[in-house]
């Protein structure tokens, strides 16, 4: 009976079990199909993403121009020390050992130049010595194996900005070969000792970690392999959950099944997160080596490698910029592990322990030359897609001079604040928008844009007043009228700076209405020379001159100078009553210091792929648009503007060099301008309100101080004068009549003339 009962119970159990077998098998099949599909899909996705060509987004980088130094240069004037700091050279005290080191004494500066990939040239750094006498460089010598004097020294371009993809990751790709052996060993020894023994997931490490966690009753040790860390960073999020951990393990196993350890390790060293630089994350040892040590990864010492490996666990806690002690302890810990693992000798261990941690000065300014960078990005956007720019690691070399740029930013900011304070009584009260200012500088011979400040504060407004604001140039246009008059090829009458003109009011019809220009002082000045009229910016005389020579001729001069904005041949054009951008005006003015040659403004010189292929190359381009002789005549007056005319207060602001220039004040004081130039350098400053509210300040009061203070720092007291072309004579003239001087006319002054156009009549004929 008992036997029957057992038999019955068994049968019942089997019956119940049979009832569940079908659904269990069915569910099992579904799980296998779904799981298999998931694995297949995941494997495909992993393979696609891990494919070399799709691996990482490399941001494009925008560089300044290189800087040149030579015997005779004043290192204080060119701010060499600040340049070295910006280039992340490290002050090592007395001795320089490797790329990126420098040391300064009163007698010399030693610099171990960085390696740098220029377009078409890979530069290998070497040590140089600049011997000093006070602040003047006496000699530059290469001080490696065979000391060699150098005629000049080129410091590499500065990294100004980067263009990131959506991930905002800053990265310098490295190959495994480039990574020092010590660094790889340190990473493995600290993060995954059994890297070469497991297949992606290390159960022993997981068990050991779990045991330690249980003992300590908290998470003290992770059990993730390098492969799992790579998967977490590369494929997944850092979200902590069982499912995510499972997914991570599956992908790690798939990765190891398909790829070599070398492949995985190389991906790891390029992916691992190692800190922040502003809003972008620093990913990979290549970029981290640059950030923390200002070196290429293959230049890292044993101690530096150990620190970098140690930082992986907690980049913020072990950041040598902010926590030097913790960084040192962590480095020593890693060195200890390396020694215990017999990967380094005792001597290497002790030497590395004794090595000081030297970091470059950390850049405090993260947003450099923002208006210029925006201007460059706008041009790049016309040439390349966002995807290409954000992901393919292009290198863009520009004309920016960072030393000049920083001076320009400081001067614009401080001067606008000063104007608001000093002239609060005349500025409009409670005006909604802020007073704005801008400055641009160009090397006129080459067309290189050297500095650009598009507004007083990029944080407040990104509107670039240099390239985007359409403003009336006012009196800054007048020199083009006089240039036209002096050019025999453009006007049928002969004019010279000594030609007399009546600065007396007149009225003409313009657009069906009466038009009568007025001088700023509301006065008429009678019969004056063209020199006097332009030096003092007389509106009436200028407008009269423009009408005499023909407005179409003046318009052609403007076009030949590169002004492309809308212009009409109306009388008010002579007084700058049309709109241009300050950039256009600055570019047009380059014909003055450049003897009538127009150099095309350039801001981008080269665009290079990460493989070194040159995509874009811009050369200097120049073209003669005016004969040099009339330009010389115009320049002789523009020099007077600064020496004794409306721009004379430039001297009071400390600028003592030889220069020409022109103030500009539009009607009702809506715009204040000053454009000025030496033979080698041109700068334009502008001040105004965005809504065209009058500032009640003239060009001399508002814009000129910005120009003068900038030029004083950048150019100094340069005594280099403008070159004189052939075909110019200086003839002694009576200023009162514009005719030949004679003993009977007491005041005589040498004035320039195009040969053959000088007067032949004596002043006595008129004075008698």
């Amino acid at each position: 009976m008992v036997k029957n009962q057992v038999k019955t119970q068994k049968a019942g159990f089997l019956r119940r079990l049979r009832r569940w077998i079908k659904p269990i098998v069915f569910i099992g099949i579904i799980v296998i199909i779904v799981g298999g599909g998931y694995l297949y899909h995941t494997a495909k996705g992993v393979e696609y993403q891990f494919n070399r060509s799709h691996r990482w987004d490399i941001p494009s980088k925008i560089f300044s121009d290189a800087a040149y130094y030579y015997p005779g240069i004043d290192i204080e004037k060119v701010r060499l020390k600040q340049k070295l700091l910006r280039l992340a050279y490290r002050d090592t005290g007395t001795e320089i050992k490797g790329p990126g080191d420098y040391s300064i004494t009163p007698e010399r500066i030693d610099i171990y130049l960085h390696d740098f990939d220029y377009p078409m040239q890979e530069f290998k750094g070497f040590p140089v010595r600049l011997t000093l006498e006070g602040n003047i460089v006496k000699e530059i010598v290469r001080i490696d194996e065979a000391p060699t004097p150098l005629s000049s020294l080129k410091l590499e371009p500065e990294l100004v900005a980067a263009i990131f993809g959506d991930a905002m990751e800053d990265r310098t790709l490295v190959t495994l070969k480039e990574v020092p052996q010590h660094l790889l060993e340190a990473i493995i020894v600290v993060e995954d000792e059994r890297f070469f023994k497991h297949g992606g997931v290390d159960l022993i490490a997981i068990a050991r970690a779990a045991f330690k966690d249980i003992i300590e009753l908290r998470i003290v040790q992770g059990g993730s392999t390098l492969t799992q860390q790579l998967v977490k960073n590369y494929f997944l999020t850092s979200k902590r959950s069982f499912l995510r951990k499972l997914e991570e393990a599956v992908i790690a196993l798939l990765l190891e099944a398909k790829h070599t350890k070398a492949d995985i390790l190389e991906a790891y060293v390029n992916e691992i997160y190692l800190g922040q630089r502003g809003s972008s994350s620093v990913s990979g040892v290549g970029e981290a080596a640059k950030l923390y040590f200002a070196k290429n990864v293959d230049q890292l010492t044993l101690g530096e490698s150990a620190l970098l490996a140690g930082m992986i666990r907690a980049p913020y806690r072990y950041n040598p910029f902010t926590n030097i002690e913790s960084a040192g302890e962590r480095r020593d810990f890693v060195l200890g592990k390396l020694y215990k693992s017999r990967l380094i000798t005792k001597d290497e261990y002790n030497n590395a322990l004794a090595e000081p941690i030297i970091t470059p000065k950390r850049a405090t300014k993260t947003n450099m030359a923002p208006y210029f960078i925006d201007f460059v990005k706008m041009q790049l956007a016309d040439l390349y897609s966002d995807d290409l720019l954000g992901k393919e690691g292009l290198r863009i070399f520009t004309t920016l001079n960072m030393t000049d740029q920083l001076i320009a930013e400081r001067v614009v900011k401080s001067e606008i604040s000063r104007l608001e304070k000093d002239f609060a009584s005349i500025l409009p009260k409670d005006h909604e928008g802020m007073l704005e200012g801008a400055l641009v500088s160009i090397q006129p011979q080459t067309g290189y844009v050297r500095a650009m400040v598009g507004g007083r504060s990029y944080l407040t407004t990104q509107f670039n007043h240099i390239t985007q604001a359409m403003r009336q140039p006012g009196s800054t246009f007048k020199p083009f009228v006089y240039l036209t008059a002096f050019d025999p090829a453009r006007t049928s009458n002969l004019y010279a700076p000594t030609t007399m003109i009546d600065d007396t009011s007149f009225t003409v019809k313009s657009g069906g209405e009466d038009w009568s220009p007025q001088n700023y002082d509301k006065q008429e000045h009678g019969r004056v020379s063209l020199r006097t009229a332009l030096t003092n910016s007389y509106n009436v005389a200028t407008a009269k001159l423009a009408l005499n020579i023909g407005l179409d001729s003046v318009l052609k001069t403007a076009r030949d100078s590169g002004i492309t904005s809308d212009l009409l041949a109306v009388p008010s054009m002579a007084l700058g009553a049309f709109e241009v951008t300050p950039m256009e005006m600055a570019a047009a003015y380059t014909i003055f210091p450049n003897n009538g040659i127009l150099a095309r403004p350039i801001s981008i010189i080269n665009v290079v792929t990460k493989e070194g292929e040159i995509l874009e190359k811009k050369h200097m381009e120049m073209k003669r648009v005016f004969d040099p002789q009339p330009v010389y005549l115009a320049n002789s007056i523009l020099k007077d503007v600064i020496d004794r005319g409306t721009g004379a207060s430039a001297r009071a602001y400390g600028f003592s060099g030889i220069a020409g220039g022109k103030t500009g004040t539009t009607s009702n004081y809506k715009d204040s301008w000053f454009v000025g130039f030496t033979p080698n350098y041109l700068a334009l400053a502008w001040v105004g309100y965005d809504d065209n509210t009058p500032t009640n300040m003239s060009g001399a009061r508002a814009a000129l101080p910005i120009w003068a203070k900038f030029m004083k720092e950048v150019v100094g007291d340069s005594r280099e004068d403008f070159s004189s072309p052939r075909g110019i004579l200086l003839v002694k003239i009576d200023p009162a009549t514009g005719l030949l001087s004679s003993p009977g006319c007491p005041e005589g002054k040498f004035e320039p003339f195009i040969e053959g156009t000088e007067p032949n009549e004596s002043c006595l004929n008129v004075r008698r």
Partner: protein
Amino acid sequence: MLKRQALIILLLFFVTSCATWEGRGHGGKGAPQQRGGAGKTVSKEVKKPEEGQFAVVSSPARSASIDMVAKGKQSLAAGKYEKALGIFQEAVIIDSTNGVAYYYLAKTRFNLGQNEEALGILDKAESLLSSADEWMEAITLLRQQIKEAYIAGFPTQDLPQAAP
């Protein structure tokens, strides 16, 4: 007899005076003179501006630029035009008033087949070297070569008009 001699002397004096007066009117030695009002001559004080400042100026930038030009010339002679181009551009950046650097930059661009650009840069060289006769000759010669190259490649009417 005496009367005849006196007449001859007077005639000779008159002729000589006229000849001298004619000579003055056509600008002989000394400053040119003009007949002023009421028959008076007017002297014109004339001088040339200081020229050649940039042909011979010695400055740290100029010395460094000159050395750079020497390096560039080596690359040019070796036919490494792209390298030479980079060097001459650097020479110009270091000293933007070194006319010789512009000359070689123009020559390099001509060698690279960039004729129009070469002419523009040659204009710049000319403006800086206008007082140096030997360089002006070289510039004229190079300009001629560029124009010939242009003609060989393009119809004459398409030739850009360089400065005289």
